[in-house]
């Protein structure tokens, strides 16, 4: 995945190190180091390929390309790309895990929160698999762009 434009995301660069509570109301791209917690309840988080995060994460959607050590609570979806290294539990409606990703923890697909627009039940739409990963990335991007 390409690095998102800085106008679309708040951007934490490779050389930045943050310790503490990180919260916001806009999409966030982390390619540096974060330790503590990340709270983006209605927005999306992307952990870039150089990102190293040791934090509890709460966001609408999460895409991990780098390292994450901590639990993920995502309202909509979580995606682990092939370079992802994730240690922690995932609770979300939909998950996509690309072939090659390393994951240690629990996946708990939340059945609640089915959208009123006729979306399939969350448990039935879990999409962990390499075949779906490419389109999943695009879907996430589209959703992010649409939200802006």
């Amino acid at each position: 995945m390409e690095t998102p434009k800085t106008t679309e995301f708040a951007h934490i660069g490779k050389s930045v190190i943050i310790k503490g509570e990180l919260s916001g109301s806009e999409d966030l791209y982390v390619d540096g180091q974060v330790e503590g917690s990340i709270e983006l309840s209605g927005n999306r988080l992307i952990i870039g390929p150089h990102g190293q995060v040791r934090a509890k994460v709460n966001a609408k959607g999460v895409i991990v390309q780098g390292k994450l050590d901590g639990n993920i609570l995502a309202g909509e979806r979580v995606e682990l790309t092939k370079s992802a290294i994730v240690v922690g539990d995932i609770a979300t409606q939909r998950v996509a895990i690309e072939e090659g990703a390393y994951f240690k923890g629990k996946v708990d697909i939340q059945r609640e929160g089915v959208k009123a627009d006729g979306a399939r039940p969350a448990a039935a739409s879990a999409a962990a698999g390499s075949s779906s990963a490419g389109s999943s990335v695009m879907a996430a991007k589209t959703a992010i762009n649409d939200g802006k």
Partner: protein
Amino acid sequence: MKIFRSSSDSAAQGTASARESNRLTRRSSSLGQLVKTLDSDEALCILDLGSTSPANIRYCTERGHKIYSDDLLLSSTDPSLATKDEAGNPALDSKRFLEENLVFPAAQFDVVFCWNLADYLDESLVKPVVGRLWSLLKPGGTLLAFFHTQEAGPDAPCYRYHIVGTDTLEMQLIDTRGDAKKGAQRAASNGFRLQRVFNNRNIENLFRDFANIKFFLARDNVREVLVVR
């Protein structure tokens, strides 16, 4: 103990329908039996001890189950576990290994996918890990394990297993270069080697604390075992 022969002549034909050069598909009678449990309406708690498998996560979550993924073989290659025994020989710190792995205070499991872990795990870890798995399983819970037969030979490749059908597995050769990226230095230098071959008696002894054990014979020099706590 009951012995069941694979139900189909076409079962376990490891070379059949290879999708990629390092991927093979095989029929699995034990999985076929376990699927009856996996397809139940009840939300199950499942532990997969193989390499991270998107296919297995998808298979389980699509059915409304919770799945824990923990690549125990890779975890056992952590260099910090290296120690020496009383005679000064290289050994693994099994006590520390169990302090750091297979710790699930909030979970007991209905199903554990052990795959071929016992064949490749360091000798010092096998019995402690099986003991821990007994305590992690619910009474009546089921463990699925594969064991090579003598005929497999010492260089039997180490596979990861993906569930691709109700009785079909995809076997993927473990890419130790990829694992090295994730910190498995020893795996990178040596690859995962078959550590031993269990015969039926060894397997029965290994799971002696469990209530029931069923053997499924396959054609690719692998015994499939379903063990019930």
